[in-house]
């Protein structure tokens, strides 16, 4: 069964360093989401792609976060510089248009 793949699973980084997360969606899924989930809270949408285009990035802290999906397939989310408050689970999901979203296992980021 096809799954959304994310790497790495865990990442520990020092404050002010750069960090990047990778997501490979299910083949054929045009819509890709990046979420941040802080412990005890629901997933918060950071950015939504339709193919290679950004549909919504209104909640993305653009001074330090960037996201790209250059060929409309896999995607990278970057944080530079990382801050202590960025410690969270970063989730990627993909879907066929407005249909069911399939989630990856997430990357747990700890900033020390």
């Amino acid at each position, binding site marked *: 069964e096809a799954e959304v793949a994310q790497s790495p699973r865990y990442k520990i980084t020092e404050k002010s360093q750069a960090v990047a997360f990778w997501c490979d969606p299910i083949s054929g899924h045009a819509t890709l989401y990046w979420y941040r989930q802080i412990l005890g*809270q*629901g*997933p918060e*949408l950071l950015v*939504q792609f339709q193919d290679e285009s950004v549909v919504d990035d209104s909640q993305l802290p653009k001074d330090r976060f960037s996201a790209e999906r250059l060929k409309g397939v896999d995607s990278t989310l970057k944080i530079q510089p990382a801050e202590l408050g960025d410690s969270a689970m970063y989730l990627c999901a993909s879907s066929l248009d*407005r249909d069911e*979203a399939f989630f990856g*296992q997430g990357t747990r980021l700890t900033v020390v």
Partner: protein
Amino acid sequence: AQRVTQPEKLLSVFKGAPVELKCNYSYSGSPELFWYVQYSRQRLQLLLRHISRESIKGFTADLNKGETSFHLKKPFAQEEDSAMYYCALMDKLTFGTGTQLKVEL
């Protein structure tokens, strides 16, 4: 702006008791609503969506536009229902804060 509210962080019920997980939404158009579930050490996954009007694992949810609610219900809770439940709203797939359901024996 669209918003999803789940007022309960934790709901604890006994096995065999009815379950109702509350969800209220704020949206100016015609809403598309979902319930997602996350079992321990598993990925977040879709449980059901309002447009299909189906029952999944004994759970149902009815959209009430007058009360702007989409509560999740099950008549008899089972131990395997223990999980984190999230209500979500399209068109930006927006999630509520989630309710932890704990079914006790």
